[in-house]
C-alpha cells in the first residue's frame, strides 16, 4: 500500500469518529407494552451484515417518539380510515372485505410471510396484489391505485395485525428465482450516479449522506408514514424514489421487478418485527 492509499484509508477510518454515526441503542417498545425486535442477528443469506437494525434506530429522538405511542402516531388516522373502508360495501357483488373476512384480526401473521408465491398462478405476490384480487374478483369493484391512501391504508391495517411478529419470508422453493432476481437488482449500480442499493444501505449504513442518516434500508416498517410527505408511503414508492435519485430510469410501482426487489429486501430483514405503520423523517 502506498502512502496516498494509506492516507485515504486513514481519512475514511478517522472521519466517522468525529460525528455520532451508526444506529442508536434505544429500545423500541410500542404503547409501553409491545417489545419489538428492532435489532437482531442478520439471517445467514444476508451475507455482508452481521447485525440488522430497524430504520427506527437511525432517526431522531423526536421522530422515534412518534412511533412508540399509537395516539401520537400520525399514520393511525389513515389506518382508522382503512378500518372503515374494510367494512364498506363496494362493487357489483355488493360486498365489503368484512363480508368474507371474519374481522381484520384474522390476518394476524400474514404480513410476516409477504411477499410470497401464489400457488395457483406461480406468481410472486405482495399485499397490494392480494387486496386488489379480492376487490376485482370477489367484490367486482375497481382495483385500488397502488400508492393511494386507500390501498396503503389497507396494507398498513392488515400489516398492523402482525405488529411485533418477526419477518420470515420464504426465499427457497418456488420463491428462489424471484429472490435471485431481487438480489441481482439490489447489487446493480443503476443510473448516471451508478449507485446500487448496497452502495448506500450495505456499505454505508450509519453514515450521513448530506443531511440524511443512512439506514440499512429495511422495509419491515412499511407502509411507513414519512413526515416530509405527510402520508403513508408504499414500499414500491420508496424503491422508485431511491432509484430515481441515482439519475436512473426507475421501475414502475407494481412492476414484477419491484415485487422481486421487495422479496429480497424483506428477506434481509427476516428476524425484525413487523413495524408498520412506522414513522420516518
Amino acid at each position, binding site marked *: 500500500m502506498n502512502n*496516498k492509499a494509506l*492516507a*485515504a484509508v486513514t*481519512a*475514511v477510518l*478517522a*472521519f*466517522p469518529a*468525529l*460525528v455520532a*454515526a451508526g444506529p442508536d441503542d434505544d429500545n423500541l417498545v410500542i404503547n409501553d407494552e409491545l417489545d419489538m425486535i428492532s435489532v437482531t442477528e442478520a439471517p445467514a443469506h444476508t451475507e455482508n451484515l452481521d447485525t440488522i437494525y430497524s430504520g427506527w434506530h437511525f432517526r431522531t429522538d423526536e421522530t422515534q417518539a412518534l412511533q412508540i405511542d399509537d395516539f401520537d402516531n400520525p399514520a393511525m388516522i389513515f389506518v382508522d380510515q382503512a378500518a372503515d373502508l374494510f367494512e364498506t360495501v363496494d362493487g357489483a357483488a355488493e360486498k365489503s372485505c368484512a363480508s368474507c373476512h371474519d374481522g381484520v384480526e384474522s390476518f394476524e401473521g400474514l404480513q410476516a410471510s409477504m411477499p410470497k408465491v401464489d400457488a395457483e398462478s406461480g406468481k410472486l405476490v405482495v399485499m397490494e396484489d392480494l387486496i386488489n384480487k379480492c376487490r376485482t374478483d370477489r367484490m367486482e369493484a375497481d382495483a385500488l391505485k397502488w400508492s393511494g391512501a386507500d390501498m396503503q391504508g389497507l396494507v398498513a391495517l392488515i400489516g398492523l395485525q402482525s405488529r411485533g411478529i418477526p419477518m420470515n419470508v420464504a426465499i427457497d422453493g418456488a420463491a428462489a428465482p424471484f429472490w435471485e432476481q431481487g438480489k441481482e437488482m439490489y447489487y*446493480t*449500480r*443503476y*443510473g*448516471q*450516479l*451508478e*449507485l446500487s442499493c448496497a*452502495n*448506500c444501505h450495505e*456499505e*454505508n449504513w450509519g*453514515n*450521513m*449522506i*448530506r*443531511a440524511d442518516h*443512512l439506514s440499512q434500508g429495511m422495509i419491515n416498517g412499511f407502509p411507513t408514514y414519512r413526515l416530509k410527505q405527510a402520508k403513508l408511503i408504499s414500499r414500491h414508492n420508496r424503491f*422508485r424514489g431511491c*432509484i*430515481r*435519485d*441515482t*439519475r*436512473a*430510469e*426507475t421501475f414502475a410501482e407494481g412492476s414484477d421487478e419491484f415485487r422481486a426487489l421487495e422479496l429480497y429486501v424483506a428477506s434481509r430483514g427476516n428476524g425484525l418485527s413487523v413495524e408498520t405503520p412506522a414513522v420516518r423523517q
Partner: protein
Amino acid sequence: MKLRLITLVCAMTGGAAFAAETGPKDVQFDDYGAIEQSLTGVAGDAANGALIVGEKSKGNCVACHELTALADIPFHGEVGPMLDGAGDRWSEAELRGLVANAKMTFEGTVMPAFYKDDGYIRPGDAYTGKAPSAPLTSILTAQEIEDVVAFLATLKEQ
C-alpha cells in the same frame, strides 16, 4: 476568393479551439487513473470550483465529503474521505482523474463519475425517473471539472 480563404481560416481556427476540449469518451487515463492533460487547456477557476463542490445541483461533493473550507454550507456527508489536505495528498493530474471518474483510480468505489456520458445501466433524464429523451451529457462540463480540480488543489493542510 480571398474572402473565402479568410472565412475558411476563421472556421478552422474556431474548430481548433473547440477540439482543444477533450470529450468524455476521449479522456486518457494513465495506469493509475490520473489524467495528465487539462480537459480544456484553460486554467481552472478555483472560486467557481468551490461553488460547484457545494452546490446541490452541480457537483454536490459535500453530500458525501466533509471539508473545512466550505464549513458555512450545512450538512456535509461522511460517505467519502474528508477533503481537507486533498491538495497535499494528490497531484493535479490525480485529482483530475478522481473527479472525472474515480473508478479508474479506485476500482468499485461508490463515487460517481462526473465526466462520463455512456456505459450506464438504465440512465435517466436527470432526476425525473424517466428515460432520457436526448443523448446523455456528463454531470459536469470539462471546464467545471477543471474548476473543481483547481479548487481541490488549494486544499492544503498547512
